[in-house]
């Protein structure tokens, strides 16, 4: 690491923000989103429900005067719902100029994953539309599923096909 880096910052000059990912846990899987879109990480807030939104949009929070819709990423992926606890966090992001908060089981760390360590070419999704999985990042012997946040927040149906769930 460069000794010119200010104390408390672990990034060095060669770090590229596009290769930095914030990883988080959902059940026992690890996911990642590009750090560039992340505005802040906040603890669970009081959610106010709103009508006329899909079930995975749990409502909105008022974050210092900004109204931010919250998406429960478990429900978005068709995973079983889990009660929020003290580790549950909201990753606040700006996607396509609109704020969105992702409710996840807990954040793990910020990692640099260079493109060479990201497997992209495989068709991970099973449908013809643009997949929500942008790639699989290899970090040592672990992997993180890197998400395409613009697909994640879109209305595209990305729930796990029911036949897959039945097979588990």
């Amino acid at each position, binding site marked *: 690491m460069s000794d010119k880096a200010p104390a408390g910052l672990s990034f060095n000059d060669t770090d590229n923000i596009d290769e930095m990912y914030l990883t988080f846990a959902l059940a026992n899987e690890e996911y990642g989103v590009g750090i560039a879109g992340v505005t802040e990480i906040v603890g669970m807030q009081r959610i106010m429900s*709103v*009508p006329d939104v899909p079930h995975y949009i749990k409502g909105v*929070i*008022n974050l210092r*005067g*900004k109204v931010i*819709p919250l998406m429960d990423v478990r429900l978005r992926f068709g995973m079983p719902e889990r009660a929020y606890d003290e580790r549950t966090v909201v990753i606040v992001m700006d996607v396509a*100029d*609109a704020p969105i908060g992702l409710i996840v089981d807990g954040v793990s760390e910020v990692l640099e994953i260079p493109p060479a360590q990201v497997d992209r070419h495989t068709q991970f999704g099973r449908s013809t539309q643009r997949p929500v999985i942008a790639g699989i990042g290899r970090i040592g012997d672990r992997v993180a599923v890197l998400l395409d946040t613009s697909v994640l927040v879109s209305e595209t149906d990305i729930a796990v096909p029911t036949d897959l769930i039945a097979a588990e």
Partner: protein
Amino acid sequence: MSMAVEPQSTATATAADSGLMRVSSDKISRLMDLVGELSLSVSETVQSPDLQGLDLSNFDTAVHRLNMIVREVQDAATDLRLVPIDDVFRRLRRMVRELERQTGKSIDMVIEGGDTAIDKLVADKLYDPLLHVVRNSADHGLEPPAERLATGKTEQGRITLSAAQVGSEVQIIVADDGRGLSREKILKKAREKGFFGETEEPEPAALWKVIFEPGFSTAETVSNLSGRGVGMDVLNSTMTALRGRIAVDSTAGQGTRVALHIPVSLAFLDCIILRLGSQLFAVPIDVVSEIARPNPGELLAISAEGGSEMFRLRGKHVPVCRLDQFYGAPIGDRDAPSGVLVVFNTSNGAIAVPVDEILDRQQVVMKPLIGRLANVRASWGCALLGTGEVALVLDCERLGAGVSS
């Protein structure tokens, strides 16, 4: 950050002489945002749960004064953005001169209430829709001079453009003394386009409204002035964006009158706050006509046509719009059936919306619905309440339209 002193120019010198100052709209927008945040944090502070159970008589007096000041600061900040509507009217007057040349008609343009104040943001958006209304009057409304003389009218046609503030709304009226809308032609076209059944005879107000539908135009010839069926559509979408309403009135042979009702300011909204289950809704105060607690027997269930409900109010029947039915999903955590009906005025007539509780009346700061909230129906936006809670601002017009269809 250092403040840059702008070099003195002759323009600023003359402006200073007349007591006027040029300020960029960005600075005013910033001030408006700050005032909004200020009023929110004041409410948050005075409603803090930490204060519960304390003896607060002096505090309450101070809070009262603080709230008064905040309200005044809000009004003063809103006032900064108000401009006379005359700026828009004068541009239209120039346009009418141009129209006189193009149509060969002589037009007497009368302007009333040009000093009516309106939010600069609203004024900037008004020119195009008003232009379409005025063009329609000049092109289709007013008859050619010979035809006017034959029907005993003055040779010169008249278009009156007037503005007046009515409550928290500005009412802008474009009236002409031309031939009026042709019920026959519009009805024929409306039936062709499937707006009405072949034998249906709609009320005049309902019929005139179809001229604002996209792609509706009865003009036989498409001139470069109007008749392309897009103008009225522009009017419609602008009015929706400005939270305004349009009303058309016309008498054959005597003329047409188009009235636009627009809120004076877009920043703050005077609302009543309603609770339904765990959800909060805000409704602009001026659409609420009354609040009622129905007695048994005043709610009438009708099974025909898919089922509906009517509320009997002083001998009249008002359709009931249940929000959970409208949104097609139960509204969270309902303990008891709603006991209060709020009656709203809409251009489709009154509707009654059942709620559990009426909480408060307050000035709310509106936030637009963006991102994943953009598709929420019948809503203007989110309202931030003094308690830090978020309420959905209901658009009663679209709620009412949802009921009647």
